[in-house]
Each structure stands twice: as structure tokens, then as C-alpha cells.
């Protein structure tokens, strides 16, 4: 079995892992290979977390016409190191009245759950820790552990703000988990599989130079947008960062955490963001597949991380622009817009499946999506009569 240099580059990590493992006795091989993959995932995504914190701070800085961190290391890129040292050396304060055990377990559970989700994300061709048949289900299952961790943090701190933050976080996460799952169901319908690997494989083919990504269908595009909105809410990012709500409830559920535990919360939050973005890439943006057929020579894992970075940039951009929603608005947005839209999207995906391909199918599906979107957004606004106002002037 010979591979072209392109394939070699693409499969570099896979083959080197195989080679390393093959030196070991047979009974250790599968275990070692799993451990190696886990270490790789932990290292790579922790590094990505570090890079993202710098990128976010510098990007936000530039959006706000500032420099951002530029003192530690070249152009400030060693800032995460300094932050890490700081958080490690800080005193670990636990409130006297806190529920010590739960208070300690919450960040651990959060980070564990966040890391667990990466097990089913195919970051490259043949590069997935486990190819579960129910991969997406697994993803959402471990994702639901995050809610529990957040609740534990908010409740065990015995702080009114953290309690409010915890309540907000749970309400928000439960509400947005429904549209998140429903938005990904369209892909499961189209792919006929719950396995992330086979979903990516389905998208990794081309017509001419154009890829078969699900985002290039009406339901896929709508699903992607809905999924990303729900993912933003799930990962507590602006404009859905109510559980932290810095200006309202200060830091929300992790107000009573300091030092390394605080850093763990930070880490868990970003890991959750990467994971949901990774799932969005897997489901809608063709996973590790190249965007054009003539770009397939670039290794697949690079494509995955490029797409991930793109989504992170969009997250940062949105954070730099938008104010935060209010709790009731968040809820009504989830239940009055997101949920019906995802259900409509399911219907549209069915229509797409059963209609003969052609321009008519496109038009019908787009119409079926745009009409309810307009109607729903209007109904969302109508109760409150939001409008750009005109003012009178007195001389």
C-alpha cells in the first residue's frame, strides 16, 4: 500500500501513531493508541484555547481601536503563559459557607465534559478518537453534563449572584439545547446516520469543483445559521452571555471561583465553544473536507482547524459588536423563533428529500424557509412594537 506525498502529509499523524504503536506488544496497542489520541486532543485544544484567548483579546482590541495585549513575548502572543502562571499562583479562595465538595467538583466536571465531546469530532481524514455509531447523540449527551456542572458551580458557591447566574445558565442551556439538537437533526435525516465520520464522508465529494456540503442547501444553510445561534447560546457567548452577565450579575455562576478553578471555567467555556463549532463544521461545513476539489492537496486536519478558526473569528466579531439580550427576550427568542424555525427546517428538509432536483426545489424550499422566518420575527417584535423612532424638536 503506497501513498502519494499528498496522502502522506494528510495521514502523517495517523501513520506515525500506527508506527509508534506497532513497536509495542499487541495487548497494549489499542490502549496506547487511545491514550496517545487523548493526549493529542487535550494538548491541541488546550493550545487552541491559549491561542484563542490572545486572538480574542487582540481582535476585540482592534475592533475597539486598541492594541490588545502586546507586551508578553512577540506581539503579546505569550500572554496566555503569563495568565496561566498568574492563575496557578493565585490563592484558591473558597467561601466559608460554600458546599466545599460540590464547589470543587464543578470545574472538574465542566472541563471533563467539555473534553469528552472531542472524542467523536473527526478533525481529519481517519482522525477521530472513536467512531461511534451514535456519535452525535454522544456529543449531545456529554454536552448536557455541562449544564450540571454549571448548576453545581452556581448552587454550591452560596452566592446570590452565582445562584442567579446558575439559574440563568440552566434555563438558557436547556432552552437552546432543543433547537441545537433539532437543527442538527436535518443533517441526520439527510445523511441517514448518527456517526460523525460517515456524515463527513458524505460531504467530502465534489461536483466539478463544488463540494457537497450540507450548508449549500436551503435547509442546510438555515440549519447552520440556527445551529450557530443555538451554539452561541449554549457556549454562553455574547450576545447570549447572560449567565456571566458581567454588568448585571458580575460573573454569574463562577463568581466565587478564583485562581486555577476560575481558569478551568474559562477553559471549559472555550472548549465548549470549540466543540460546538467543531460539530457545526462536521455537520454543515464538510468537516475536514476542502472547500474546492482543487484544494484537496492541503491536509485535511488543516482544513478542519481553518474552519474552526473562521468560526472563532465570527464569534469574536459578534462579541465585539452586540449588546446582550435580556433573560425573557432570550427565552422568547428560543421558544418563539428558534424552535418553530428548526421544526420548519425539518419539514423543509423532508420536502427537499422528496422533490425532484432542480431550480423549482430550490425556490420552494427557500420560500418555505423565508416566509416563516419573516412571520416569526414579525410576531416576535409585534408584542413589543420595536421601531426606529423619530423625534420632535423644540426651538
Amino acid at each position, binding site marked *: 500500500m503506497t501513498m502519494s506525498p499528498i496522502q502522506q502529509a494528510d495521514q502523517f499523524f495517523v501513520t506515525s501513531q500506527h508506527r509508534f504503536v506497532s513497536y509495542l506488544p499487541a495487548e497494549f496497542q489499542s490502549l496506547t493508541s487511545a491514550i496517545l489520541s487523548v493526549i493529542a486532543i487535550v494538548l491541541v485544544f488546550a493550545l487552541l484555547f491559549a491561542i484563542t484567548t490572545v486572538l480574542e483579546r487582540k481582535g476585540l482590541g482592534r475592533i475597539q481601536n486598541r492594541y490588545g495585549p502586546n507586551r508578553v513575548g512577540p506581539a503579546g502572543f505569550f500572554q496566555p503563559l503569563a495568565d496561566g502562571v498568574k492563575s496557578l499562583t493565585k490563592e484558591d479562595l473558597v467561601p466559608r459557607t460554600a*458546599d466545599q465538595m*460540590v464547589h470543587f467538583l464543578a470545574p472538574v466536571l465542566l472541563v471533563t465534559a467539555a473534553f469528552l465531546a472531542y472524542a467523536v469530532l473527526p478533525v481529519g481524514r481517519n482522525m477521530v478518537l472513536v467512531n*461511534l*455509531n*451514535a456519535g452525535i*447523540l*454522544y456529543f*449531545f*449527551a*456529554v*454536552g*448536557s*453534563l455541562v*449544564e*450540571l456542572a454549571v*448548576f*453545581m458551580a452556581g*448552587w454550591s458557591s*452560596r452566592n446570590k449572584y452565582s*445562584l442567579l447566574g446558575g*439559574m440563568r445558565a*440552566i434555563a438558557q442551556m*436547556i432552552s437552546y*439545547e432543543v433547537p441545537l439538537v433539532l437543527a442538527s437533526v436535518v443533517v*441526520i435525516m439527510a445523511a*441517514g*446516520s*448518527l456517526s460523525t465520520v460517515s456524515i463527513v464522508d458524505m460531504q467530502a465529494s465534489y461536483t466539478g469543483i463544488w463540494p457537497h456540503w450540507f450548508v449549500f442547501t436551503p435547509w442546510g444553510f438555515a440549519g447552520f445559521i440556527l445551529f450557530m445561534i443555538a451554539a452561541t447560546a449554549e457556549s454562553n457567548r455574547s450576545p447570549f452571555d447572560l449567565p456571566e452577565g458581567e454588568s448585571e450579575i458580575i460573573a454569574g455562576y463562577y463568581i466565587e471561583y478564583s485562581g486555577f478553578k476560575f481558569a478551568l471555567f474559562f477553559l471549559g467555556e472555550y472548549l465548549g465553544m470549540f466543540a460546538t463549532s467543531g460539530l457545526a463544521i462536521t455537520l454543515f461545513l464538510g468537516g475536514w473536507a476542502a472547500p474546492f476539489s482543487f484544494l484537496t492537496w492541503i491536509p485535511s486536519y488543516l482544513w478542519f482547524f481553518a474552519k474552526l478558526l473562521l468560526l472563532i473569528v465570527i464569534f469574536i466579531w459578534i462579541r465585539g459588536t452586540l449588546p446582550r439580550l435580556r433573560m425573557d427576550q432570550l427565552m422568547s427568542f428560543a421558544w418563539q423563533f428558534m424552535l418553530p424555525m428548526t421544526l420548519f427546517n425539518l419539514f423543509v428538509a423532508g420536502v427537499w428529500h422528496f422533490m425532484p432536483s432542480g431550480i423549482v426545489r430550490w425556490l420552494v424550499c427557500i420560500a418555505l424557509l423565508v416566509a416563516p422566518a419573516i412571520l416569526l420575527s414579525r410576531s416576535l417584535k409585534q408584542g413589543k412594537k420595536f421601531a426606529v423612532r423619530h423625534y420632535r424638536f423644540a426651538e
Partner: protein
Amino acid sequence: MTVTFLILAALTLAGTVAAMAMRNLIHCVLALTLGFAGLAALYLLLGAQFVGFTQILVYVGAVAILAVFVIMMTQSAIPAMQSIFSSFWVAGSVVAAAVFAVLAWAICRSGFASQVLPPVEAAVHPIGDALMHGYVLPLEIMGLLLTAAMIGAVVLAMHEKRRTP
């Protein structure tokens, strides 16, 4: 395999026993969550991926959260210091015994599988087939029940809102 099973079974049992024995209601729910998770792991051990993950998604992700939410809404967050034995303990144990009897009867009647079945793939098609063909009536009944419960909750909430303008 047996070792894994034993560990998981011990974990599950420990979680559920702790859920009964702990004083703080939130701790009880958290311990129960551990039990749920252990149960899910047991399902996975049996190769039932779909059931296992659904167990986590539904029980850990939704039921446990709902339980703590209800506790937080109805009770103060301060641990209750009263006795863990309810005054209805007789009735409670009767109900528990009855549930146990029914479950035991059902399990014993089904007969233990003597041969190991090939692991079923958690593919979408067979699950969909099963739900839409074989078990369509139970599914519909469940859906109806949940809808009724939801409508009931909405009605209750609306009533509440009208009462306190």
C-alpha cells in the same frame, strides 16, 4: 469485562444509595445523577449505544436538572435539617415494594438470554423503523401524554400569572 461491570455496578449502587441517604436534597439529586450515569455506562457496556447516550441525555441532562430546578424553586437552597424519614414511610415502603415486585416479575418472566446476540448498530434506519412500525402506538401514546402534560403545565402557569397581576 466483569471487572468493569462490577465497578460500574458498585458506582451505580453507591449513587442510588447515597441519593436515598443524604440529607441535602441537592446532594441527593447529584448522587442520583451518578446512579443514572452508571446505568448509562452499563447500557454502553452491553453495546446499546443509543439507549446509553439517550439515558445520559434525558436523565442526566434533563431529569436531574429539572429536579434540582424544582428543588431550588420550591425550597430554600439551605440544606433541610429535618429527619430524612417522611411520615408517610409506611405508604412509601408499600409502593416501593409493589414497584419492586412488578419489576422483578417482569424481569424473571422475560428469561435471561442464554446466547450472546451480535451488537446492534445504533443506526438511524432500524431505530426509525422500530419506532414508526413496531412501536408506533406506544410512541403516539407517549407523545399524547407529554403533550397533555405540557398543556397542563401551560394552563397552570397561565392561571398563576392571572392570579398575580
